[in-house]
């Protein structure tokens, strides 16, 4: 019930933030209306990276404690992370075409490293399908999740380390955070969208974690059922052999 309320709050917050970003905030002097895509784009990008950070931390926790609940958290975060990273890329493309003149440029380090994170996230989810053994699957996934998270600081610093199309961070250092170069209304719209998306992210994480736990229980039941059936078959075989001798 509490999770459902969180979902409705998230929905209302996203609608409010979208109306604020689309209607209340004026168009940018240089970028025009295309600037409005920045609000969901940046929020999606930050939450995508947060998701893969959670996947890595939960993966480290799993390797340390061998608790499958941590693997369920890692799995949930990876799936939600793939979703938000895909949103970030889509938003960036829809902004890039009118402002940069191109949807995509592979030479840009920020774009390429973000695409790499999406590919690693999809790879993580595919890898999980390769094994039926929960412990083996969780171990392999944890390793891939940690490797994927190594890309997050590279994405962040890519605009500082290398030259590309993507602009340098607007909120990169604490002084910019307190005194951003963007106008106040733009910052409020961005932070509002980030807050709304964060609520939705929490809702999706909880739901996906619940699903992962139930799926694990069903899978475990199926595995125990197969073991039990195999034991019964072996016992029956032994009886048949005894009686035929």
């Amino acid at each position, binding site marked *: 019930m509490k999770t459902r309320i969180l*979902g409705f709050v998230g929905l209302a917050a*996203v609608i409010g933030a*979208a109306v604020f970003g*689309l209607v209340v905030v004026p168009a940018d002097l240089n970028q*025009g*209306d*295309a600037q*409005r*895509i920045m609000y*969901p*784009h940046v929020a*999606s990008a930050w939450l995508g990276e947060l998701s893969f950070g959670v996947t890595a931390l939960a993966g480290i926790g799993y390797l340390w404690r061998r608790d499958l609940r941590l693997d369920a958290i890692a799995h949930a975060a990876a799936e939600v992370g793939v*979703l938000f990273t*895909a*949103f970030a890329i*889509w*938003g960036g493309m*829809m*902004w890039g*075409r*009118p402002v940069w003149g191109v949807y995509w440029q592979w030479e840009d380090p920020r774009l390429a490293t973000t695409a790499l994170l999406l590919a690693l996230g999809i790879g993580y989810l595919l890898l999980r399908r390769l094994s039926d053994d929960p412990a083996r699957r969780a171990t392999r996934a944890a390793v891939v999740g940690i490797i994927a998270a190594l890309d997050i600081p590279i994405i962040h610093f890519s605009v500082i380390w290398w030259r590309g199309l993507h602009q340098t961070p607007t909120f990169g250092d604490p002084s910019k955070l307190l005194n951003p170069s963007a106008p106040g209304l733009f910052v409020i719209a961005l932070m509002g969208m980030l807050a709304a998306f964060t609520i*939705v992210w929490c*809702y*999706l994480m909880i*739901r*996906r974690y*619940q*699903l992962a736990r*139930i*799926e694990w*229980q*069903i899978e475990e*039941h199926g595995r125990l059922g197969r073991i*039990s059936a195999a*034991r*019964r078959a072996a*016992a029956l075989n032994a009886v048949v052999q005894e009686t035929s001798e």
Partner: protein
Amino acid sequence: MTDVGFVIAGYAVILGGAALYAIALGRRLRAARETSMKIRRDAEAAGPPDRTA
């Protein structure tokens, strides 16, 4: 396509995608819960597990 077209496409895919994922997740969760309940009911109907096997 105009700037407004790109804005609409950007918001529609992101917000619509999130909504579709939330709905799909809800359905997957409901189906998993039903399967889990069915397993529990079947287990209760079958009685205690066979320890001799």
